[in-house]
C-alpha cells in the first residue's frame, strides 16, 4: 500500500478519537515506568550524593570514549542500510578482523621497541593495516554473501549476514585460537591529562579525537566528493541512480570500503581502550553499534554519530544515575539492559530514530 492510499484509507474510516485499546494502555504504562525509573532514580542518586562532580565527569568521558567507537562502527551499519536496505550483521565481526590482524603488527612493533620510539607512525601503520583488512573482508562478504541476493526480496541476505558473522568469528578462532590476547600498552598511552581541572586517562581524549576526525572526514567524503554524491543518489533511489548513469556496483563497493575503514579505525581504538583482542570481541560492540545506528535513525549518517555518542553516555552514566538511586544493587551488570531497552523503546515509539532518515520522499 502506498502512503497516499494509506492516507485515504485512514480518512475513509470513522474517527475514533477517544477509543483506548489495551495496547495503548500497555505502551503508556511502559513510558510511565521508564519515566519513573529515570526521574526517580536520578533524584534518588542525587539525594544520596554518593558521586562527586569528578565522578560524573569521569562517567561522561568513559561514555564519550565508548560512544566514539560505537559511532564509528555504527557508520558501517547505517551506510550499508542506506544503500542496500540490508542490516550487515557481520559488521561487528569485520571490526574484530581488523583489530585482530592489527594486533600482530602492534605486538611486533612493541617487541622491537618501534611503538615507543615512533608512536605516531606506528599507530598509523597499525590503523592502516586494520582498515585494509576490514575493507577487504567487508568487500569479500559483500561479493560472496550479499551480491547474489541483491534482487531477491526474502530474508536470505539477512540470514546470510548472520552466517557470515559466525563464519568470521569461528575462522578467527580456528586460525588464532580462543585465548584472549593482550594488546600492547605503550608508555605514551599511560599518562593522564588535565581537562578543566579533572585528570583523565590520555587514551580517552585520543580516542574521542580520532573518532571525531574520522567521522568528519567521512562526512566530507559523503557530502563533497563525486562518489559521495553518487552514494547519496543510490541511497535515495537505486534504479533512478542507475538510469542517470551511476555505476551502482561501484558505489556499493565504495560504501563497503568506507564502512570497512571506519570499522578498522573503530576496532583499533577499541583495542587501545580495552587492550585485548578475542575472536568474539566484535559481537557485542557490533550489536551495540547497530543499536546506536537505529537510535540515531538507521540510514542517516549524522544519526549514527549522534546515536553512538548518546548510547555510550547513557550506558556509562545510566547505571549510576538511574539505577543506583532506586536501590538496585550491583547496577553495572544491567548496563547492557539499559542499552537494549533503549533500542526497544526507539523501535516502539520512534522507529525513525533521533534524527530520522533523511530522504526526499519516504519509501513505502
Amino acid at each position: 500500500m502506498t502512503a497516499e492510499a494509506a492516507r485515504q484509507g485512514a480518512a475513509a474510516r470513522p474517527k475514533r478519537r477517544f477509543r483506548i485499546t489495551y495496547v495503548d494502555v500497555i505502551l503508556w504504562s511502559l513510558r510511565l515506568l521508564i519515566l519513573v525509573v529515570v526521574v526517580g532514580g536520578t533524584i534518588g542518586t542525587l539525594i544520596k550524593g554518593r558521586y562527586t562532580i569528578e565522578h560524573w565527569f569521569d562517567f561522561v568521558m568513559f561514555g564519550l570514549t565508548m560512544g566514539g567507537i560505537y559511532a564509528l562502527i555504527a557508520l558501517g551499519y547505517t551506510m550499508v542500510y542506506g544503500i542496500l536496505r540490508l542490516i550487515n550483521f557481520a559488521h561487528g565481526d569485520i571490526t574484530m578482523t581488523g583489530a585482530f590482524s592489527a594486533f600482530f603488527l602492534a605486538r611486533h612493533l612493541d617487541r622491537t621497541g618501534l611503538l615507543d620510539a615512533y608512536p605516531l607512525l606506528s599507530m598509523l601503520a597499525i590503523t592502516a593495516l586494520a582498515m585494509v583488512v576490514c575493507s577487504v573482508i567487508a568487500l569479500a562478504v559483500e561479493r560472496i554473501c550479499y551480491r547474489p541476493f541483491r534482487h531477491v526480496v526474502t530474508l536470505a541476505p539477512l540470514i546470510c549476514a548472520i552466517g557470515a558473522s559466525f563464519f568470521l568469528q569461528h575462522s578467527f578462532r580456528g586460525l588464532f585460537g580462543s585465548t584472549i590476547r593482550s594488546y600492547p600498552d605503550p608508555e605514551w598511552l599511560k599518562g593522564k591529562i588535565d581537562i578543566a581541572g579533572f585528570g583523565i586517562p590520555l587514551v580517552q581524549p585520543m580516542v574521542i579525537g580520532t573518532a571525531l576526525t574520522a567521522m568528519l572526514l567521512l562526512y566530507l567524503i559523503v557530502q563533497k566528493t563525486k562518489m559521495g554524491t553518487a552514494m547519496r543518489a543510490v541511497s535515495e533511489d537505486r534504479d533512478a541512480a542507475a538510469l542517470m548513469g551511476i555505476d551502482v556496483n561501484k558505489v556499493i563497493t565504495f560504501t563497503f570500503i568506507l564502512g570497512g575503514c571506519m570499522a578498522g579505525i573503530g576496532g583499533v581504538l577499541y583495542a587501545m581502550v580495552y587492550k585485548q583482542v578475542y575472536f568474539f570481541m566484535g559481537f557485542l560492540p557490533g550489536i551495540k553499534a547497530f543499536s546506536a545506528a537505529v537510535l540515531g535513525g538507521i540510514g542517516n549518517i549524522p544519526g549514527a554519530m549522534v546515536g553512538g555518542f548518546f548510547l555510550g553516555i547513557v550506558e556509562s552514566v545510566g547505571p549510576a544515575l538511574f539505577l543506583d538511586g532506586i536501590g538496585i544493587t550491583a547496577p553495572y551488570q544491567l548496563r547492557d539492559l539499559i542499552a537494549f531497552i533503549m533500542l526497544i523503546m526507539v523501535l516502539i515509539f520512534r522507529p525513525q530514530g533521533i534524527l530520522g532518515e533523511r530522504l526526499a520522499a519516504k519509501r513505502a
Partner: protein
Amino acid sequence: MKIRRLLTIAAAALLAVGVFSAAQAGETKGPVTDEIGVVKIPKGAPIFIGGYWTLSGPDTALGLDQKRAVEIAFDDWGNKIAGHPIKFIAEDGQCNAEGGQTAATKLASNQRIVLVIGPDCSSSATPGAPILWKAGIPSVGTSTTAPSLTAPDRKPGYHGYIRTVYNDLAAGAADAEYFYNQLRCRTLATVHDGSPYAEQLVRVAENTFKGLGGSIVAAEAVAPTDVDMRPLLTGIATTKPCVIYFPVFVAAAAQIARQAPEISGLENTHIVGGSALMAPGFLEAAGDAAVGFVFTNPDTSTDAFGKRYPEFVEKYKKKFGEAPVQAFHANAYDGAVVALMAIEKVAVTDDKGNTYIGRKALRDALFATEAFDGIGGAIKCNEHGDCAAFKFAVYEFTNGDPSTFKIGTNPKKIFP
C-alpha cells in the same frame, strides 16, 4: 472420542507403572543386580570413562591441566582397570552452563560410559552433574568448588556427584580472614560474575568478613564477557574500600587488573583476585598489568601437597613438556584415582572374562572413599560428596610475559 481418551490415559498409566516397577526392580546382568542399571563390558573390550573440562577459551589452562593430570593417573594404572583397557572420552565444558549441559548430554548419551571425571567449573557442573546422574553416571568434580553442589539440601540430581576439591565454604572464610587479620582491612568490596563459583564464594567471604567485625561497602557484579570495568570501579571507589575481592575468571579479571590502576580513589586499595587466575592465560590477557597482581589460591607448593606430588610433577613435565599450567591438577589426579579405585571395587568379572559394573554400587563406592593419601593431600568423602580439605595461600605475579609462567616463581607464593 471419549473411549480414545480413556485408552490414552490407561496406556499412560500402564507405562508409568511399568517404568516405576522397572526402576524398583533394577537390572540384572550376569552376576550383578543393581538398582539403577548394570554396564556389561565384554571380554577384552575397553571400560569407557568420560571427562569434561574447559578445553577452549580464555580459561583453557584450567581444564587442560586437569585433563592432563587424569591422563597421568591412567598411565600410572597402566591404562587398565579391572582387566580391561581404559577408553577415555573428554568433552569441552567451556566453563559455562551451556557448555556443561552440552558436554554432559553427549557423555550421558553414551551408555557404555561408567563414570565421568570433571568438570572444572561449577557453572558447568550445575547443569552437567544432574544430566549425568539421571543417566546413571556418577561424576567426580575436580575443581568445582561452589558450596551448592554438595549442600545437604541439594537436589537429588546431585546425589551422584562427589568432588576431590575443597568446598568454597572453607575458601571464602579463609579469604575473609586473610583480609581482616593479615591485611588489617575493615572494609571489603566484592565483585562476582554471576557464575555459581564466584557468586557463592563472595557471599561466604562477605558473611565471614561481617562476622569478624568488618563491613561490606560494595557488592557488585559483572558479566564474564564485560570489558569496560571503569564505571564499576569508579562506583566502588566512592565507597573507599580497603580491599576489592573479585574471584572471577580470566577475561573479566584481566580487565579489572588493567583498569583499576587508572581509577582515582583506588590507589591504596588492595586488588585481590581468585583461584581461576593461576594460569598463563591471565598473563596473556592482562599483559604487564599482571605484575604485582595478587590472588588467593589453594596452596600448591610441594610442602602443602602430599609426599608424592614432586614425582607427579616430573611425570607431567616428561609427558607434556612443561610444568603444570594451573592450580588444580593434583585434585584432578586424585579424582581419577578415586574413580579407578571405586571401579575396581565394584567391578565383577565372570568366568568368561566379561565384567559387570553396577551403577548404583559404583556411586556408593565413590561416596564410601575413605582415608586415602592423595597427591593433593588427604582424601576422605563425607555423605554429601565433599572429599578434600582446603589449604589457603596467596600468590603474586612477578612478570607479565606468559612464557615466564611457572608456579612458585611467577606467580610466587607470598602467604603463608
